[in-house]
């Protein structure tokens, strides 16, 4: 990351070589000195805020997180000690992430390939690209409401369960996972597309010259070389999904435990309701119904560890190739 930052072609950006030529801030105008000190305060202040958040969550998390919490089911209870662990929310997070990524990956990678390698007719390509931008800008709560109206259609009754009065419930792992895939698509699409566009044209030309078709070039030459971009995109998508609360609260039914619908093993699970770590934190905060702040802290700490881990993972996969500051990947902030 830092090696890219200091661009050898622009020595003026290098702090060390720039420093010697500077006048002392003491001779500056007062407004410049004010700006200088405010910039330092802002930068250091953000670090302090982040440190406070991490330390506080770490302190509360270590205080309340017990290994037994990870392997015991939640219980309905009025006391914090009797409300069990969060095995079900953990499984819910894993399952939802899996569904979301499995649905999002082919859509996002497929559209990225089509946009960058085919993209005809042009107007259609523009429509597809801007619709992905619209999804990226749509609040998750709106996507959740959209999911609710879609999965309450009788057409999709099979994906959740139908009440005895004939109303379709519309809340299930499939419903939540499908909407989760929508919020995972934009980063995955952008990462793949930017990777493909960064491949020099002579790679394609060489493959064409060898008599390969376009699709064969894509499969044998282009896709293998954007593998790390796709991996980055998937990681970004996963961190979007595990951090999202609104979709879970509206579409996963908010049951304490995972409640399969029907007796068919896997299908029943997918049609069933449950919880995730985020909805568990929400429910156990004073804003929710269960009200066990200690459990909320423990689960939030775990969530924080996951997010930090995914952050590191994105780093390892190769953020440095993509962008100069390491702050954005393919235009998405991570």
């Amino acid at each position, binding site marked *: 990351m*830092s090696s890219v930052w200091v661009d050898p072609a622009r020595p003026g*950006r290098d702090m060390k070589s720039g420093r010697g030529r500077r006048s002392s801030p003491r001779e500056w105008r007062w407004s410049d000195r004010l700006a200088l000190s405010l910039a330092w305060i802002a930068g250091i202040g953000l*670090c302090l805020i982040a440190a406070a958040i991490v330390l506080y969550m770490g302190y509360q998390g270590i205080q309340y997180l017990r290994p037994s919490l990870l392997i015991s089911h939640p219980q309905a209870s009025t006391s914090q000690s009797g409300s069990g662990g969060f095995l079900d929310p953990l499984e819910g997070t894993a399952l939802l992430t899996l569904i979301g990524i499995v649905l999002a990956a082919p859509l996002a990678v497929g559209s990225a390939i089509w946009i960058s*390698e085919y993209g005809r007719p042009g107007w259609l390509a523009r429509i597809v690209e801007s619709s992905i931008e619209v999804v990226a800008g749509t609040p998750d709560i709106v*996507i959740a409401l959209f999911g609710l*109206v879609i999965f309450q259609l009788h057409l999709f009754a099979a994906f959740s369960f139908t009440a005895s009065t004939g109303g379709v419930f519309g809340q299930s792992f499939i419903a939540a996972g499908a909407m989760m895939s929508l919020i995972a698509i934009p980063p995955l699409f952008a990462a793949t597309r930017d990777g493909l566009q960064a491949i020099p044209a002579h790679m394609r030309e060489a493959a064409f010259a060898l008599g390969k078709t376009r699709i064969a070039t894509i499969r044998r030459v282009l896709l293998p070389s954007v593998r790390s971009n796709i991996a980055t995109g998937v990681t970004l998508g996963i961190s979007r999904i595990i951090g999202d609360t*609104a979709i879970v609260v509206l579409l996963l039914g908010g049951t304490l435990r995972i409640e399969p619908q029907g007796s068919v093993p896997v299908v029943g699970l997918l049609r069933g309701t449950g919880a995730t770590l985020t909805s568990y934190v929400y429910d156990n905060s*004073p804003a929710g119904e269960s009200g066990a702040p200690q459990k909320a802290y423990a689960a939030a700490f775990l969530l924080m560890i996951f997010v930090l881990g995914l952050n590191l993972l994105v780093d390892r996969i190769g953020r440095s190739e993509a962008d100069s500051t390491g702050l954005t990947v393919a235009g998405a902030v991570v």
Partner: protein
Amino acid sequence: MLEQLRKPWSDRRAELSLGAVSLIVAVVVVAMVVFVAIKAWPTLEHNGLSWLGPGGSLEGQISNAYSAPAPAPASAFHLRAWPLVFGTLVTTGVAVALGLVIAVLSSIFIVELAPARLRRIVIPVIRLLASVPSVIYGLIGILVLVPFVGSHLISPGEKNSLQNVVELTGASIGVAIVILTVMITPIMIALICEALISAPNSWREGAIALGVNPVRAMLAVTLKAIRGAIVAAAVLAGARALGEAIMISMVSGSRDFAPRIGDGVTFLFEPVRTLASAIVDYHEGVGAPALKSALYAFALLMLFSALVLSVGGYLIKLPLRRYQTRG
């Protein structure tokens, strides 16, 4: 079927199937706008444009909508969403304004001032702040900031002065704005930093050669050159702030109350509800047709604002683009 996939595809077939995959996303987006609009229509039709305006108690109107019998009578759809619109405008606007100042300053810090060692710390920190889930921000807000504000910052006098209007518990617009600012600032920092790095360096060097100090050169030359990126950052962050539901629902008191600017400093301690947090707060009542339509109307307004923001940001950027010679 797998066997067939493994055979080499013809180009035509590949292009068509990949195009079909891409179309799915576009169709889903169109379906989203259409379905949300259809569900929102009864409320919008009944109230017209005055839906956006003030009038009566929103709390009463919503409980009316919730308790209306199954084929909802027309009166159940009566709704004036002004408190929510106002809450959304104020929280988003103030958070973006505050965040923009902080973001510009810290971007200058990161790109220009921070020693390399410090920069290696600051950048992961910014990324961390950007990736903390909103529910964790909400948790810290409701368990730490709200009690602190409630017991230390709000004086009994302030509580008494509003006791007939609204209860001041600490869950307030002030806390919501502070956390929202922390949440959206990293987004702006990332975009502004990227632009600062790729801004034409020669302009700044020219200014320095003329004897201007580096900070002034940054403020007067480089920042001006990346105006477009700053606008884009503000717009993106604004869209994010607009849709923040869970965190605001947790820390802002969940009352259908528009904070009154006339109250001075106490304004910051009054509860607020935004369009997004209203959907979270009332989602259990989605079975009632009138309330359901009201919630979808809130969603439609947010969808519309997000669209306007991105189109607006694009249009603002157009005339500014000529200053940008991104390499």
